[in-house]
């Protein structure tokens, strides 16, 4: 049709609409000539849309197809090749150049919009995932309120033997129990769960530690008795552990660890399932360490217990300062989850300052007598202790929820 020279060597895949073609449409290869856009069909026919008579439109199924039409719409050449608009801009001038510029600007704007939409979608999905996770964790923790305290007690009963075995050997002595019972009798009436039955087990190990099991069993390690300076400091550690029990931190931790399953079982009232699952998770020491929030709650709860029981609550801060190795003995994961001693002491002192003034009386406990009684009990129990020595001698710190 035209004696055309190519503007450049680029060839684009596309098609042509023309009445002369059977069916009105044919596939074609497109080149940019000196005078117009040239399409050559597979049967060798050439069609040209002159530059000065070219109207551009974007469309097609993808929205990215460029249609180059003559003004009377008798001939249309189209292509989806992304390089075509830029090449056409190079070859054109005047009005057509401006048309291409508008199309390229619209393309850039669409690209920016799609990019924004894409990132927005990614952000929304991430926000939903994170939000969903926290909603689940929060929901599972909130659902703990609906579970009867007897579930805590059953989990505690189930795990007690294996936790004792993990830490060493239990020293059983009625006289030692009597010392501990004095502290329990002082503090227990002031806890938030009056029906909780507390008992203290003495573990014969040098580790400076104390462990609260769900339901009311507290394990005090012999090393702790040796480390505290006053009976009030010992009471403060026990008060801290009692708060872990009454605030049900273990069950909360279990609910958080196995969120969905626990929440589901709580919802359908499958108490047996919660107990089995709870016992299993609790024994998995790494999962049982408390969060900083729980530790903070237990610190403050312990102070309030001491205050209510008429025991000087400053012992709580003193115990943390007096026995810094209480923390040093713990594992890395435990340290990570615990606020540092200074921050804990500051929080405790702040609470003490806000408490109403009252008279405090010292505990009628002689620490030396307690230590002697423990030594007597340990001596009487010596053969059993020797049997357990491989377990006891382990310096492996515990990850369990400990003071």
């Amino acid at each position, binding site marked *: 049709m035209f004696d055309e020279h190519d503007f450049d060597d680029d060839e684009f895949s596309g*098609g042509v*609409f023309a009445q002369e073609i059977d*069916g*009105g*449409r*044919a*596939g074609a290869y497109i080149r940019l000539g000196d005078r117009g856009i040239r399409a050559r069909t*597979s049967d060798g026919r050439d069609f040209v849309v002159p530059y000065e008579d070219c109207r551009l439109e974007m*469309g*097609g*199924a*993808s*929205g990215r*197809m460029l*249609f180059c039409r003559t003004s009377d*719409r008798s001939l*249309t050449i*189209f292509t*989806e090749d992304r390089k075509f608009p830029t090449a056409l801009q190079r070859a054109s001038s005047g009005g057509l150049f401006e048309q291409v510029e508008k199309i390229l600007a619209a393309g850039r704007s669409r690209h920016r919009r799609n990019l924004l939409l894409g990132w927005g979608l990614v952000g929304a999905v991430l926000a939903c995932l994170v939000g969903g996770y926290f909603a689940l964790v929060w929901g599972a923790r909130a659902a703990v309120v609906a579970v009867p305290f007897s579930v805590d007690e059953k989990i505690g009963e189930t795990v007690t033997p294996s936790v004792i075995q993990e830490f060493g050997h239990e020293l059983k002595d009625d006289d030692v129990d009597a010392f501990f019972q004095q502290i329990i009798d002082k503090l227990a009436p002031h806890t938030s769960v009056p029906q909780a039955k507390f008992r203290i087990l003495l573990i014969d190990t040098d580790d400076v530690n104390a462990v609260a099991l769900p339901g009311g069993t507290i394990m005090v390690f012999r090393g702790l008795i040796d480390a505290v300076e006053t009976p009030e400091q010992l009471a403060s550690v026990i008060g801290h552990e009692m708060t872990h029990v009454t605030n049900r931190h273990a069950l909360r931790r279990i609910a958080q660890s196995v969120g969905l399953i626990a929440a589901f079982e709580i919802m359908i009232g499958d108490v047996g399932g919660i107990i089995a699952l709870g016992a299993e998770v609790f024994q998995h020491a790494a999962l049982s360490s408390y969060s900083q929030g729980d530790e903070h709650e237990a610190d403050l709860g312990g102070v309030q217990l001491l205050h209510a029981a008429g025991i000087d609550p400053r012992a709580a801060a003193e115990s943390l300062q007096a026995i810094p190795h209480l923390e040093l003995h713990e594992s890395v994961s435990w340290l990570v989850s615990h606020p540092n001693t200074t921050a804990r002491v500051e929080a405790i002192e702040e609470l003490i300052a806000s408490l109403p003034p009252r008279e405090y009386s010292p505990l009628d406990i002689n620490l030396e007598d307690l230590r002697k009684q423990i030594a007597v009990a340990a001596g009487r129990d010596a053969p059993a202790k020797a049997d357990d020595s491989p377990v006891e001698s382990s310096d492996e710190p515990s990850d369990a929820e400990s003071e």
Partner: protein
Amino acid sequence: MQFEILAQPAASVLRLSMDAGEELTAEVGAMIAMSTGFTVETSGRKKGGGGGLMKGLKRMFAGESFFLNHFTAQQSGQTLYLGPKLLGDIMHHDLSGTLIVQGSSWMASDPGIDIDASWQGFGKALFSGESMFWVKCSGHGDLFLSSFGAIYEIDVDGEYTVDTGHIVAFEDTLQFRIGKAGESLIGSFLGGEGLVCKFSGQGKLYCQSHNPPSFGSVLGPKLKPR
């Protein structure tokens, strides 16, 4: 290869006469009958390679099968009968370029034609009454599509409106958007048309006389529960 479409449009059957070496790729389950001189190969890929797992999975999202059947005539004068799943029509399209086909309407094509799926966008996916993905057929050769009810062809040059669920296929030179049938949205719904597909551009559009969801909603309540 010669073809004949029998019993149009209600219960169409495609009859193909193929010579030795001629091939056809068809939808899994489309074969009704065939003479003995064919080899049938089933794979998730296009004949001769190309595509693969991802394309197979995309086809599944578009309402087609993961697998494709490749029929190759080993002798001359072989006949192959293919039929659609639903009661309806079959059409032949001499493809030269790209045709966008609604999920499940692709029935068979020349092995050289690439069968891929393309995402139609959120708005269209939710409201077009079609699958989330379209089947995108590109290349050159014979393409056979099936429909529910009769197929009719429209040459669009400008704008054209089709009710949702009635699209069989359209050329890639056409663009469509979802819009309301009447002036107001409430009026559109009260008129029973609700949302429609509004095409613009130039190219061929193929529509079907019936749409499966509407048929299902009429038939469903009449069925006895099992």
